[in-house]
C-alpha cells in the first residue's frame, strides 16, 4: 500500500547556513517542517576543563575563543567575575572601565553587523552580507589598533587593561568616512550617517525581506522567558530586559541608552529590528564614552598582586553580550587556578528554541529562524 513518509533531512554539520558545524535534524512534510532537533558538540574542546588547569590570567585568551564574533564581551564577563571574587582587593581604574565599555559596545556593533548580515544572506540577499563585512572590518581595524590583534584580543586584564588607547584613536567629532577605520569618531559618524540608513533602505524596508521574516518563528514572551532566551531574542519577544540596565556590570549605569523591544509575539523581523536599534544605542554609548575619555587621561591598570590568588568563594557573574546573557560561574579554592569555571553561553540556550520555533514553517524559514537567533558555534560547543 502506498503511503507518504516524512523526509528526514540532516542540515549540517556541513551546510552553508548553519553558521559553523551545527547539525539540525529536520523532518519535512513536503516543504513544511514537522520536527526539528539540533545536535551540537562538533566543536567541543572542553573549555571548562581546560580552565581548571590554567591560572586566572591564562584563562582570558580562552574566553576569546568561545564567542569569536564578540570576544571582548566574553573577556569582560570572565575578568569581572574574577574581580568580583577578589572583592575589595582589586579596584579597576575608572578610565579602564570606560575603555572596557567603549570596546564592548564597539564589539557589539561588529557582532550585530555579522548577525544581521548573515541573516540577510540566509534569506538570500548576498550583497548586504558583504556590506556588513565591509563595515565590520572597520571595527576590527579599530580594535586592532588598540589591542594588536584583529580577532582574539586578550586585552582585558584582571584589574584593568593591558594598555591604554593609542594616540589619536579617539579623533575629533567631525571625522568623516575617510577616517572611519582610524578613529572612533570617524567610525561612529560613518555608522550613523551612512551604514544604518543604508541597511534600513536596502534590507529592512525591502518587502521580500519583510515577507520572509514577518510572522515567521513567532515566540511568545512567556515562552521566551521559560526557554531561557536572552539578549535580542528575549527583547524581540517584547520583554524589556537588558542586563546592562537590570544588572549593570562595569559602569553601564552611567550611560544613557534605550532598550528596544519587539512586540508581544515576536517574530524574526522583531529580532532583526531589535538588533538594528541596539546598534544605534551602542553608537550612542560609544559617543558618551568618547567624550569622557577625551577629557580624562589616567591609569588603566590597577594594583594587582603578581600572582593572582583570589580568596575562597563562588560567584556567578552575568554580562549582556551581543547574543544574550553570558554567565560565568567561577569557584575559587584559594589557589592560583580556578576550581571551576562554568560558561553559560546564550547561543547554547537559544538552540533549545529550535524545536519550539521551527515546526509548522517551511524549510526556508528554518535558516531564517536560525539566522534570527544568531548562534556562534564556538560558544555553543565551548
Amino acid at each position: 500500500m502506498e503511503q507518504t513518509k516524512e523526509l528526514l533531512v540532516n542540515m549540517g554539520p556541513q551546510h552553508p547556513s548553519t553558521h559553523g558545524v551545527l547539525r539540525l535534524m529536520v523532518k519535512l512534510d513536503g516543504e513544511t517542517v514537522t520536527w526539528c532537533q539540533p545536535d551540537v558538540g562538533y566543536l567541543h574542546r572542553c573549555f571548562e576543563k581546560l580552565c581548571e588547569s590554567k591560572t586566572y590570567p591564562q584563562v582570558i585568551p580562552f574566553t576569546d575563543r568561545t564567542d569569536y564574533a564578540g570576544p571582548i564581551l566574553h573577556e569582560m564577563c570572565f575578568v569581572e567575575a574574577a574581580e568580583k571574587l577578589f572583592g575589595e582587593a582589586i579596584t579597576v581604574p575608572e578610565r579602564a572601565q570606560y575603555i572596557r565599555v567603549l570596546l564592548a559596545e564597539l564589539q557589539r556593533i561588529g557582532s550585530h553587523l555579522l548577525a544581521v548580515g548573515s541573516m540577510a544572506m540566509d534569506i538570500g540577499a548576498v550583497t548586504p552580507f558583504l556590506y556588513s563585512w565591509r563595515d565590520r572590518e572597520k571595527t576590527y581595524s579599530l580594535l586592532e589598533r588598540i589591542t594588536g590583534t584583529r580577532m582574539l584580543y586578550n586585552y582585558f586584564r584582571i584589574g584593568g587593561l593591558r594598555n591604554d588607547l593609542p594616540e589619536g584613536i579617539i579623533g575629533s567629532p567631525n571625522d568623516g568616512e575617510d577616517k572611519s577605520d582610524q578613529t572612533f569618531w570617524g567610525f561612529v559618524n560613518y555608522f550613523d550617517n551612512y551604514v544604518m540608513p543604508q541597511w534600513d533602505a536596502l534590507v529592512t524596508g525591502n518587502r521580500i525581506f519583510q515577507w520572509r521574516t514577518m510572522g515567521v518563528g513567532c515566540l511568545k514572551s512567556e515562552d521566551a522567558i521559560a526557554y531561557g532566551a536572552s539578549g535580542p531574542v528575549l527583547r524581540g519577544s517584547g520583554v524589556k530586559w537588558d542586563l546592562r540596565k537590570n544588572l549593570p556590570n562595569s559602569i553601564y549605569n552611567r550611560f544613557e541608552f534605550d532598550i528596544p523591544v519587539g512586540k508581544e509575539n515576536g517574530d524574526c523581523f522583531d529580532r532583526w529590528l531589535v538588533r538594528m536599534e541596539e546598534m544605534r544605542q551602542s553608537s550612542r554609548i560609544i559617543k558618551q564614552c568618547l567624550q569622557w575619555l577625551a577629557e580624562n587621561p589616567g591609569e588603566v591598570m590597577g594594583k594587582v598582586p603578581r600572582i593572582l590568588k583570589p580568596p575562597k568563594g563562588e560567584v556567578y557573574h552575568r554580562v549582556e553580550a551581543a547574543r544574550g546573557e553570558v554567565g560565568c560561574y567561577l569557584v575559587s579554592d584559594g589557589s592560583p587556578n580556578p576550581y571551576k569555571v562554568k560558561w553559560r553561553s546564550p547561543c547554547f540556550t537559544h538552540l533549545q528554541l529550535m524545536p519550539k520555533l521551527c515546526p509548522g514553517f517551511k524549510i526556508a524559514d528554518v535558516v531564517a529562524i536560525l539566522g534570527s537567533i544568531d548562534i556562534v558555534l564556538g560558544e555553543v560547543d565551548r
Partner: protein
Amino acid sequence: MVAWWNSLSPVAQAWIWGFGKATLILIWGLLNFAVAMMLERKLSAWIQNRVGPWRAGLHGWLQPIPDLLKLFLKEYIEPRNIDKPLFVIAPFIGFVMCLLIWLIIPIGPGAVAMNLDIGIIFIAAITGYDVIMIFMSGWGSNNKYSLLGAMRGAAQMISYEVTLVMSIIGVVMMAGSLRLSDIVDAQAARGPLGWYLLPQIIGFLIYLIASLAELNRAPFDLSEAESELVSGYHTEYSGFRWAVFALTEYIHLVGWSAIAATLFLGGWTGPTHADLAALVGNLVNGFGLFPNGAGTGLIDWANNAAVNMGWFAKWIWGFWWFAFKTYLFVFLAMWIRWTLPRVRIDQLMDLGWKFLLPVSLLNIFLTGILKFVATEYHGVPVNLGFTTLRLLGWWTN
C-alpha cells in the same frame, strides 16, 4: 562559389546551411556564456565594492577561459546509488534547449536562423524541457536536497510558464502575429515610442518577473537556493557536468533577455549612422530655425546614406542594437539578483497564481479593449483621452 552552391541539390543545401547555422548558434551561445558570466561576476563585485576576478587577462576579463579549462580537467564525482542515465543526460538536455531558443530570434534584418511562424509557441514549448532537466538531475542525484530543489523547480517553472505566455499575448495581439520577425517589423513601423515597452508596460513587468522565475534567478532561485538546499538540483554535480549547468543558466539568461528585447524593445531596430547624422544636421540647423549649408548638407548626406545603406551596414547596426538591448536586460536581471533577497516557495506560488496570472489576464482584456477602441473610433476628433492613447503609442496615426 555561387555556381557551386547552386549546383548542389536542395537537400544538401539545406543540410549545409543548417549545419552552418547550428555551429554559429553554438559559438554565439558559448560567447554569450563567457560574456554573461564575466558580467555577472564583475557586476556583483562592483556592487559589493570588490574587484572580482583580477588575474587572468586585463583586470581578469579572461577568467572564463581558465575556469572552463579547470572544469574540463576536474573529476566527475558520482555518488553511490544514483540513477545514472538521468544523472548523466540531464545537464545536456538543458544545454540543447537553451541553444534552441536562438533558432528563432532575429538578430538583424532578415538574420534569423529559422523564421518560424509560431515563434512564441515554440519558445514556450522548449521551455518545458527545462523542467525535465531539473527534475531529471534532482531525481537522479539520489540526494534529498537535490530532490527538494527539483520539486521546487518543477512547480515553479510549470506555474510561471503560464504567466509568461499570458504576458506575451498582449504583444501578440498588438502585432497580430506570433512570428518574432513580424513583431520586430511592427515595432519598427511604430518608432521608438511605439515599441511595446510602453503600451504593454503591464505585460512587460509581468514578463520580467516571470522570466526571472523561469530562469531560476534570484529572487526566485528557489531550486538552487544555496542557503537552504545546499545547491539545489545540481548539488551532486561536479566537473564539466556542473559547467554545463552553468552554461545553460547563462545562455538561457541571455536568450530570455533577447526575447524580451525582441518583444518589448523593438529587437534589432534602432537609429543607424544615417539617423544620427540627420539628428546632428537638425541640431546644426536648429531644427529649421536657422538653416545653413553645413546642416542641410549633413541632412542630405544622411538621407542619401539611409537610402543607399547596404545589407552589411544594416546588419551591423541591427546586431549592435540587438546586443545592446539584450545586455540591457541581462544587466537588469543581474542588478536585481544582487539586490533582492529570495522569496519563499509559498510566496512564489502566491505571486504567480494569485497576482501575476490575474494581472496578465487583465492585461489581455485591457489590450483587447484598447485595440477595439483604437480601431473603432479611428479618425474621431481628438480629445484628452485619445491624446493619452496616442502618446502611449496606441494610436499609430
